[in-house]
């Protein structure tokens, strides 16, 4: 019997397909890579929840490592991630700024009063315009921005104590050092 080089091909093709599909199962389809990573943080100019009359512009944070956490009072996972946000705010030299997305000022204020306020302050994006500029497609979302105003990391979905401890805190420490 002659050796037919193509005989094993279907088997090899099947093995490759299984490997690719297996890899696909491990990827989280809901985690989209943000094109903002490595780019300057999009600008906005929004009213602050804690001090109506004062406004927040991301450029005010120049020279500091800071975190923008997008939340809303209608968002259940946002409440679930609050302890992790708290741990983040206490665990590192970092300002955690809230971006209240498509919500009302009263709703936001009541929510913070009821659940605790881990934020240095919160800016109100009532129309969701800043959210679109930051590529927000589901709350909660968390961005890490460095001293030069460049977006360095994005986490989609609720933060957990593990992601804070293993990903965010080491990253923030590294950014603070250099």
């Amino acid at each position, binding site marked *: *019997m*002659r050796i037919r080089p*193509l005989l094993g*091909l279907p088997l090899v093709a099947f093995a490759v397909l299984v490997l690719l599909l297996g890899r696909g199962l491990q990827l989280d*389809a809901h985690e*989209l*890579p*943000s*094109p*903002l990573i490595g780019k300057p943080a*999009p600008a906005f100019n929004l009213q602050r929840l804690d001090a109506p009359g004062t406004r927040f512009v991301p450029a005010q944070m120049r020279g500091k490592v800071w975190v923008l956490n997008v939340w809303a009072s209608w968002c259940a996972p946002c409440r679930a991630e609050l302890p992790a946000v708290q741990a983040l705010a206490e665990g590192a030299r970092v300002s955690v700024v809230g971006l209240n997305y*498509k919500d009302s000022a009263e709703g936001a204020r009541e929510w913070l009063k009821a659940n605790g306020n881990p934020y240095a302050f919160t800016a109100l994006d009532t129309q*969701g*315009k800043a*959210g*679109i*500029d*930051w*590529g927000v*497609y*589901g709350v909660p979302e968390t961005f890490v921005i460095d001293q030069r105003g460049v977006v360095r990391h994005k986490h989609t979905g609720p933060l957990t104590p593990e992601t804070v401890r293993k990903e965010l805190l080491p990253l923030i420490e590294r950014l603070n050092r250099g």
Partner: protein
Amino acid sequence: MAERGVQAVGPGTGAWARRAGALLLALAAGAAAAALPDPVLEARVARLSEELRCLVCRNQSLADSDAELARDLKRELREQLAAGRSEGEVRDYLVQRYGDFVLYRPPLKASTALLWIAPLLLPLAGLAVLWSRWRRARGEDDEDAAPVQGGEGAA
């Protein structure tokens, strides 16, 4: 009926009534035009939102989706197109924020090259396999004709 009734009162009043009616019609038409959105702009928004993905529902276009974010993004498209930006500029605006994933037609670049050429490569590979088998079959026929034993086709 009403028209005839008005005319019965007198020709003068009838003409006045007709003019008033015409005025009312014109006003109504004006109001409707103001309330209805610009059809050309709406057609552009519809066409553009057909080829953009709704980020929350994933396998639906912006045009098909009634999700909150989809509505916001359609409003954004409408505003930007109304402000005079081109379809290409608005598409780029969204890609810069949401990535290529927002496009239903992925752009051709190094990371997507396989996606684009695979439909060409696969039939070609199939044809190559068919051709080699056909050639072998013919070769084996020839072997059968010759007095050689042990060929696969001989059984």
